């Protein structure tokens, strides 16, 4: 029993089709029901989001003949946050002849996720990875190449094979522009209608099925209604619940959260990824944290002063007074341990009072040995854009003084629960990309996010959604249906409430304070007492928010504070659910570290016997307890084992 939730009696079923894992997807998609090509145009498909998942889905569905309505909060679909991904995209091409295969990518991804993902989904992802590269190259994505003209690869994120394709440090941008082009081609063909500067504020269900959405037009403030036969959420992750993260400032959870409140289960909300190499916070009014590529750890040595409270300049601290803590704690992997381990170790040093920089929450990443060994020119060439970027932000020259880095929230593995078809628990509501819980378990490997977004959008959704549409009778729903009016009424009430105060704290201040609670108590490492405190503090702050938040302006115009008010309101509720989920999961796995569950050496201690399941939460109304449903995870091919980097 839990004071926070009831437990669902029936286990959740992911709907994985039968058959050997290697042929499962191929056979399944070949047996699905199809729609007649000429009939597809009668189906209106609503796609929310234009990142890798959204744009690839919208374009692919339009190519097949569907009528697609595509929405985004940005002024152009090309600006969705996928654009900021740096490192690369994995694919099991085995171009390097170094032993890679679909099977190896599958095993690496399940292991990387610390055995908290669904095996069949991960296998399908690995299978599709090669098709993605083919598609992107055909679109003119300028991936890095060798002198002979063949595609180049690099190893990334600790993988022992070179399977990562990349376009300088801007892989996400180039992949996104590829599917943005495909999308705009369909806009030109009249099969996609594009709705930029629209924010989805509610899902409409008719007879249980997802049948439409309501949006706020972010320029005019109008509440707009759209009906369709299916709704695809491709709205990204929710790291901005922490206020400071590597995400763009407009990233939010509102679309998925409003669907949660309409009955879609939310899975593993506490599974978040904290990236170790980010530029630390410099001041109180900072708006975001900037990621510095993980590749810097190939040459940089991480250290802090041996003694707490040592505020001398790094140059004045002698070798014997420095603690190269990753090399000391993890001699086998040294500075190259996985993201979650590196992040936690840095936090531990700072908590001991040995952090550096103006806030004491930073560690040094020192290149002086590498520069001495290989020469400054080699290092300059290797990290050509990163050192100037760091200098631009901090005003310090990392060639001569060590960089300062600190972990920051980066990616959310949790999201709306989906079955093998990518459908949520609401019929007709699909969730793609980072917005869903699916393939990354408790920790995502580097260069896997882009792969998943594109696999979902290009190669999975068209099959599974078509099967759903073909197996159900098509019934037109009009936006005059009372469910739309009801929903609009509730949005109008919400907007009016935010605008009702003419004094009080701003939305940003509330968001900042919430982020502080989340980071301190639901962040990189968590404990039961802290999580309980967090739930109480979040509730108190949420009440204050609803009673006193001050949003200037009106609802009938462009009003970014009003937009943020709705998002922050949802972050309060999501933050609480994250804390509840983290509190219930009495184990440590991947990015979820509970201080009570660690080995003597301070490593994550997984509990497969009791927690080898997906935790999916059901919302049942404002005065009802939420319900925890469990989808058991079975591993037939990737046998769970403990990770060691000693």
């Amino acid at each position, binding site marked *: 029993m839990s004071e926070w939730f009831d437990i669902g009696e029936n286990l959740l079923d992911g709907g994985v089709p039968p058959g050997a894992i290697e042929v499962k997807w191929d056979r399944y998609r070949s047996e699905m029901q199809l729609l007649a090509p000429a009939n597809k145009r009668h189906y209106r498909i609503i796609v929310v989001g234009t990142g890798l998942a959204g744009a690839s889905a919208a374009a692919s569905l339009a190519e097949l003949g569907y009528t697609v309505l595509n929405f985004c909060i940005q002024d152009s679909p090309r600006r969705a946050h996928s*654009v*900021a991904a740096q490192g690369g995209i994995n694919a099991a091409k085995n171009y390097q002849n170094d032993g890679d295969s679909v099977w190896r990518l599958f095993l690496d991804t399940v292991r990387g996720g610390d055995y908290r993902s669904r095996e069949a989904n991960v296998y399908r992802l690995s299978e599709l990875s090669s098709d993605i590269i083919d598609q992107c190259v055909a679109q*003119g994505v300028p991936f890095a190449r060798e002198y002979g003209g063949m595609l180049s690869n690099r190893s990334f994120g600790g993988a022992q094979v070179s399977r990562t394709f990349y376009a300088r440090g801007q892989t996400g941008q180039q992949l996104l522009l590829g599917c943005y082009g495909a999308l705009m081609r369909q806009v030109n063909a009249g099969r996609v209608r594009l709705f930029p500067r629209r924010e989805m504020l509610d899902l409409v269900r008719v007879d249980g099925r997802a049948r439409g959405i309501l949006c706020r037009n972010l320029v005019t403030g109008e509440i707009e209604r759209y009906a369709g036969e299916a709704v695809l959420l491709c709205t990204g992750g929710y790291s901005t619940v922490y206020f400071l993260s590597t995400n763009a400032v407009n990233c939010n959870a509102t679309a998925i959260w409003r669907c949660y409140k309409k009955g879609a289960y939310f899975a593993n909300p506490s599974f978040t990824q904290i990236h170790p190499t980010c530029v630390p916070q410099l001041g109180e009014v900072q708006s975001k944290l900037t990621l510095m590529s993980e590749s810097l750890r190939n040459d940089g040595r991480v250290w802090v002063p041996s003694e707490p409270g040592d505020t001398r300049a790094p140059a004045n601290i002698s070798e014997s007074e420095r603690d190269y803590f990753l090399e000391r704690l993890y001699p086998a992997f040294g500075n190259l341990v996985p993201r979650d381990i590196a992040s936690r170790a840095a936090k531990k040093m700072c908590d001991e009072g040995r952090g550096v920089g103006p806030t004491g929450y930073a560690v040094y990443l020192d290149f002086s040995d590498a520069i001495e060994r290989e020469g400054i020119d080699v290092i300059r060439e290797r990290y050509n854009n990163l050192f100037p970027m760091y200098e631009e932000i901090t005003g310090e020259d990392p060639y001569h003084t060590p960089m300062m880095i600190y972990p920051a929230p980066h990616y959310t593995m949790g999201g709306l629960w989906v079955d093998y078809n990518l459908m949520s628990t609401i019929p007709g509501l699909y969730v793609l990309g980072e917005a869903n819980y699916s393939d990354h378990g408790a920790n995502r490997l580097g260069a896997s996010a882009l792969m998943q977004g594109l696999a979902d959008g290009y190669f999975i959704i068209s099959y599974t959604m078509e099967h759903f549409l073909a197996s159900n009778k098509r019934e037109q729903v009009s936006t005059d249906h009372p469910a739309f009016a009801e929903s609009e009424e509730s949005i109008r009430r919400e907007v009016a409430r935010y605008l009702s105060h003419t004094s009080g704290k701003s939305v940003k201040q509330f968001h900042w304070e919430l982020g502080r609670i989340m980071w301190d108590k639901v962040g990189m490492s968590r404990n039961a007492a802290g999580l309980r405190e967090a739930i109480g503090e979040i509730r108190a702050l949420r009440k204050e928010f609803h009673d006193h938040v001050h949003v200037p302006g009106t609802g009938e115009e462009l009003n970014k504070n009003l937009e943020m008010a709705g998002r922050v309101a949802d972050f309060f509720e999501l933050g609480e659910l994250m804390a509840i989920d983290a509190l219930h999961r009495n184990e440590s796995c991947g990015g979820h570290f509970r201080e009570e569950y660690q080995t003597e050496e301070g490593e994550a201690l997984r509990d497969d016997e009791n927690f080898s399941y997906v935790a999916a939460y059901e919302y049942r109304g404002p005065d009802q307890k939420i319900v925890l449903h469990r989808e058991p995870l079975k591993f037939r091919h990737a046998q769970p084992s403990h990770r060691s980097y000693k």
Partner: protein
Amino acid sequence: MTTGETMTLHLKVWRQRGPDQPGALTPYTVTGVSPDMSFLEMLDLLNEQLIERNELPVEFDSDCREGICGTCGLVIDGIAHGPKRACTTCELRMRNYRDGDTITVEPFRARGFPVLKDLVVDRGAFDRIISKGGYISVNTGSAPEANTIPVPKYKTEAAMDAAICIGCGACVAACPNASAALFVGAKVSQFALLPQGHAERKVRVVRMVEQMDTEGFGACSNHGECEAVCPKKISITYIARMRREYFKAALAGV
């Protein structure tokens, strides 16, 4: 990294309530600006101070705040994206200013980019130009194996130098003719340089240039202001390449 010392700055900010309403430069004073802040964080701070005084905050667009999404864009003291080269507005730091400075902040101005509110403009014209040909027409699933067509490294690199355009529109804002030639030239060149783009090479450039003209962007007269402000340092040689592509297409009667 600096700490402690803060600045007071005087701003003249373009305020305009809506698309069809008159606008004006309005003076503000913002206090407590740290040199480590980005330019947009300084505007965030101004907005917090305005909200506290129950005044309307200044609306401006931004998203990634690390120079890759192309959402932000302000004309700062007359220069698109401000005084630093190869830098978006969000990457500009306040350590480039001194206590007591006066800074003028305006939206990107061009016929093709109507103002929506304050510093927010509508750059939908760029999307419409791309929709006319800024892609290779390949349906999902019909792609050949990726290594089937070798592409020389120097060509890929040259294509990438054009493909890094973030679509911010600073080139248009800086051009005395409000021309979009650098934006269009970059996209035309990316595909003209790659073998995958050859099938539609001629029709692409003609359609994109036609749409650019339809949107009301001016003609390029080689001022080079666009290259000077481009945060990604895209070279005007791509405009020359677009012209060559256009002439070839015209000669072929496309």
